[in-house]
């Protein structure tokens, strides 16, 4: 009989690697890895606000991520600063603000700062599992609905626009989905390692996939394997769970590189 905490970790973890796989491939195709990084860093501000103001931190994280994502699109239109600079300012600005706010909030909601930075998948509550499953169903549903348009926009934005795809709106929807994923995944691997789950399984899949659909599928499978082996390592050797999952994902990536390219 498996313990409840392991079942909760497996359920929430599976939901997380599914959505990071689905959206991670787009992050990779659109060369937006830093975007995910900056957004997840600023999520700590959401956590701090949740603790200071009271209430479910998911909604605060979501709100902060959405505001930061919107700010990014606004500032990106300015020619005097490059994108990576803007991402660095907003991401680290949010992170620093979040760290300050956490420091001054004396009651840290029972969780240590470390739990937010590196995740605490083994300490999840039932509500966390419900949140992860519900929000990831939303993410998968939206991507399913817009799949063809998302692919076309990613392959050729100008062509998509000419053929009637509202690229501005779709770009915004994509950013909101990333914000959702960050809110879901933060508890599992923490804000520092979150981008790893978005990027590494997608990068592993790139070498093996022949179609976009295959790439998503392989990224999800690769994420699931990392989740299970990471959890196992954590249970057997008492290694920190979030980092263990990411290390397994990196090993998978390295192994796939050994396969000769077709």
């Amino acid at each position, binding site marked *: 009989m498996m313990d409840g905490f392991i079942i909760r970790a497996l359920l929430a973890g599976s939901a997380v690697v599914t959505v990071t796989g689905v959206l991670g491939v787009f992050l990779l195709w659109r060369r937006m890895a830093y975007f995910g990084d900056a957004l997840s860093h600023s999520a700590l501000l959401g956590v701090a606000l949740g603790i200071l103001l009271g209430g479910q931190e998911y909604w605060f994280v979501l709100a902060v991520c959405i505001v930061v994502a919107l700010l990014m699109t606004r500032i990106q239109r300015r020619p005097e600063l490059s994108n990576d600079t803007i991402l660095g300012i907003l991401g680290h600005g949010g992170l620093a603000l979040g760290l300050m706010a956490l420091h001054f909030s004396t009651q840290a909601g029972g969780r240590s700062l470390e739990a937010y930075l590196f995740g605490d998948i083994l300490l999840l509550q039932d509500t966390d599992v419900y949140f992860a499953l519900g929000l990831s169903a939303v993410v998968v549903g939206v991507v399913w609905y817009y799949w063809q348009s998302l692919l076309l926009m*990613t*392959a*050729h934005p100008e062509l998509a626009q*000419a053929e009637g*795809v509202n690229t501005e709106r779709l770009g915004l929807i994509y950013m909101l989905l990333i914000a959702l994923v960050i809110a879901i995944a933060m508890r599992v691997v923490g804000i520092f390692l979150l981008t790893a789950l978005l990027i590494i399984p997608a990068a592993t899949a*790139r070498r093996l996939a022949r179609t976009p659909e295959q790439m998503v599928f392989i990224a999800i499978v690769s994420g699931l394997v990392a989740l299970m082996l990471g959890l196992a390592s954590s249970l057997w050797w008492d290694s920190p769970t979030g980092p263990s999952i990411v290390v397994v994902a990196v090993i998978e990536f390295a192994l796939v590189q050994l396969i000769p390219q077709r």
Partner: protein
Amino acid sequence: MSEQVLAALEHVSLRLNQRDILHDISLEVHPAKVLTLIGPNGAGKSSLLKILLGLEQPTVGKVWRKPGLSVGYVPQRFQLEPLMPLTVERFICLGSKPKQSVQSVLQAVGIEQLQQASLQGLSGGEMQRVLLARAILKRPELLVLDEPGQGVDVAGLSELYQLLTQLKNDYDYGVVLVSHDLHLVMAATDQVLCLNTHVCCSGRPDAVTAHPEYLKLFGLPNIEQNLAVYTHHHNHHHGLDGSVIIDSCEGHTHG
């Protein structure tokens, strides 16, 4: 608006950031006719295309498109993101409802052997034909091409225009073609519109080149003294991959 027009602009002007991009442009696009837009860089050609396609709204003036008009758009050649795994066939069908087989379209543009090829390995010329195939897959009434001749040498341009003319005859669509090349236009062009914020002149190709406004803008007498059009007498032409194709073996032998 008469049935004989696919799209029309009436006294269209566009002002962006206190700059006149387009001033008082009127034009009509007719079925099965070729309209070539030429003009120097910054003449507003791309903006005019965007307005015609409905991607941008003019500041002043009216845009009319035949209700339900289907447009095939061929953007400027580009290097596709090399990270997304897509075959030529998949890319061509992406997000559209094909009205004919992919194979027949690829055959029409001369790249049937690339159907299952990955998009990443394509040359610029092949990519352009893929974009062309994608545009005609849905049998559009109007084909819009943005600078198809960019970065193509004269021999390639001649071959490209030959292909476009043949496709136009087969598919019988109207064509709007944008070019920054002021001197070489497609021979099958029915009307040339010379643009430099306003319409400098328009008419059949020979009429435009003789128009005083055109000569004032682009007629460079000194250059004309120094340059001439040199006619190559090759007995071969080049395939897409650069291979030599002998047209006839009379005259002399290679070797």
